[in-house]
């Protein structure tokens, strides 16, 4: 049913902050579709990229998306997430490209880390850059947000990358009003972050208001875990434990969805979207600080990875 805005609001009508952020993100997506030749949307099955898919529907329906989706698969993902990814893509009727870290290892492009702390997180960057080159993508949408991490707080919505995929934080294009400069040379590309201005709480409130499905690991469940460096990691077949570590059952949920080897769970009883929103609103620790080992390596771990081509 059509709504009358003048009836629905007081004397000075305005959009709610979520609808204003949504509209800004839709605008960004349409600019990319119009100004770049061959974009791709990075879809990991995580909450931020789930929001990107809904925004793409809002930007381009009733037509198909003017770009394919791509997942950089480390091969160490949660099974629930891969199952969800494939189901969501099928529902949308869009095309998914899977870029595989395992293939990069098999082809000798990267060397697998060994030992109990081995992770494929670093290797993803090579797989991502290779896939961008192979398909000739000149723009890649990502679900990164500026509230996530302090290097990201400085990054533009249109983040320009040279032909090595590198980010140069000291030499970024100024971004004024809502005028984005997407001009690039052959071989260069732009990473585009339509939800740059959203916070983790905004993402969950949006998922709740749109009633979007998310992988089950975002909700509280019982899982076999082990404790390392103060984080609870999921145990899976093949994980090497360090002396003194034990496998035990715990009720956890995940705040972020990444490679199993570097993503920790949090103790939680939240089983519904509303309960997750309440939990996030009350939390006193950032999502990356609580759950991502990859950011704990050094004071500038994310900045260093982004300079090397990570998104």
């Amino acid at each position, binding site marked *: 049913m059509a709504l009358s805005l003048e009836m629905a609001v*007081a004397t000075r009508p305005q959009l709610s*902050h979520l609808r204003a952020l949504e509209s800004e993100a839709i605008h960004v997506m349409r600019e990319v579709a119009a100004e770049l030749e061959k974009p791709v949307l990075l879809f990991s099955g995580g909450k931020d990229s789930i929001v990107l898919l809904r925004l793409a529907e809002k930007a381009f*329906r*009733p037509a*198909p998306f003017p770009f394919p989706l791509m997942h950089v698969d480390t091969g160490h993902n949660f099974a629930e997430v891969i199952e969800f990814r494939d189901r969501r893509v099928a529902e949308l009727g869009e095309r998914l490209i899977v870029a595989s870290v395992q293939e990069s290892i098999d082809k000798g492009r990267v060397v697998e880390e060994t030992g109990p702390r081995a992770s494929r997180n670093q290797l993803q960057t090579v797989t991502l850059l290779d896939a961008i080159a192979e398909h000739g993508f000149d723009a890649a949408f990502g679900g990164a947000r500026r509230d996530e991490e302090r*290097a990201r707080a400085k990054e533009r919505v249109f983040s320009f990358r040279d032909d090595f995929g590198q980010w140069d934080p000291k030499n970024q294009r100024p971004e004024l009003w809502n005028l984005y400069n997407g001009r690039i040379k052959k071989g260069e590309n732009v990473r585009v972050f339509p939800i740059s201005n959203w916070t983790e709480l905004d993402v969950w409130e949006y998922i709740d208001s749109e009633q979007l499905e998310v992988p089950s690991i975002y909700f509280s469940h019982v899982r076999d875990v082990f404790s390392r460096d103060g984080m609870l990691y999921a145990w899976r077949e093949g994980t090497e434990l360090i002396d003194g570590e034990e496998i035990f059952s715990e009720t956890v949920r995940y705040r972020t969805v990444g490679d199993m080897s570097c993503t920790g769970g949090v103790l939680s009883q939240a089983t519904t979207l509303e309960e997750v929103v309440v939990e996030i609103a009350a939390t006193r620790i950032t999502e990356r600080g609580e759950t991502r080992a990859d950011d704990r390596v050094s004071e500038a771990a994310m900045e260093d990875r982004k300079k090397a081509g990570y998104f």
Partner: protein
Amino acid sequence: MTLDLLRFTTAGAVDDGKSTLIGRLLFDAKQVFEDQLEHVAQASERRGGAGALDLALLTDGLKAEREQGITIDVAYRYFATPARRFIIADCPGHRQYTRNMVTGASTADLAVVLVDARRGVTEQSKRHAFISALLGIPRMVVAINKMDLVEHSQARFDELVAEFAEFAAGLGEITGRHATAAASPDAAARAAEISYIPISALKGDNVVERSGAMDWYDGPALLELLEQVEVAYDHPFDRPARFPVQWVIRPGAGISVGVDRDAPAGAGAPDPDYRGYAGQLASGALRRGDEVAVLPGGGRTRIVAIDTYDGELEEAMAPMSLTLRLEDELDVSRGELICRPDEAATVARELQADVCWMTDRPLRPGARYVLKHTSRSATAIVDRIEDRVDVHTLQRSQPADELALNDIGRVHLRTNVPLAFDAYTSNRRTGSFILIDESSNETVGAGLIAAACA
């Protein structure tokens, strides 16, 4: 009624306490997470901070910034209180100060201008106030900082308020909007409303909590003001509607090269004859049935439907993203502007604008650039530079033969295609453009349209 989301900007140089102020605001408003605090505690200790947390470290995101103790680039911070959500554009005040301040100011509803109570109203504070006024920010808060170092003196505060107010009264003269301000109904043309607050960012006086040290001040603390301030936006239904077309939605046509079009769209089988004009309403409101003009061509038609993913709307207001369907089969494409015929935008190929120059190689007459205005890109040639604002004295000097990095000046431009625009003072979205260097692809200038050339 207040805005649900307030975007504000701060600017400052190394020593005037800007990073400390933001750190204090976030810290006292309990918006700093435990792991972030731990980082700051460790870094403060490494720097020999004698047990005190260096709150400025909260906002410095890049390695080089932490190493050198400086802020390099605009950073965006997010925080919320039960009253409002906030986005802070935190602009460094030294190197490339114009570029950073203009960038931060371009999307802000409010500017927090810092004045050091000991040093008084410096060139730096004046420059920030000038850029905020030029960029049409409707509200300004002057935070007179380091009050603890002037014995919380009311006399010193009053003196600085008087000095700043006198300077601010002359701002209309320099920004060139004094002629239209009185007559214009538009918020952006009016002089910004200014509030003054005595604070100490270091001690936390009047930042989040009111200070016991300054009983003579009976106004709100900074955060209280930010939570309650009314930003003088006009009623969207009273403003001219402006809808730049971004993208044409045609499910019946292949859209992009290299994408598999055999896959069906998920929203059910689309009507192959569907043709929708997608974009974001830059200002005003549109209703189904409205007669509209498509600029620059001037063709007239009527809105038959306002589509969104969530269903059809009877009417829509800025800043919604929408898809319009039109009655006649006009050939409308990206870059054209839909508005009402009786309140149409100006169409011209020659225009005057204030340009902020953002790169080392100066702007000189005769140069060609790509000009991006709303969703349209054109080629622009700079015909002449009429004057230049001296950002030290804040006087418009004339004539000028070039604009160097950080300069702001009035230029005359010509474009290869007509543009449909408004004066920046009446519309920030349809009155602004950026200039892009054709060979390096860098964004080199920011433009604020004054008028078409006579």
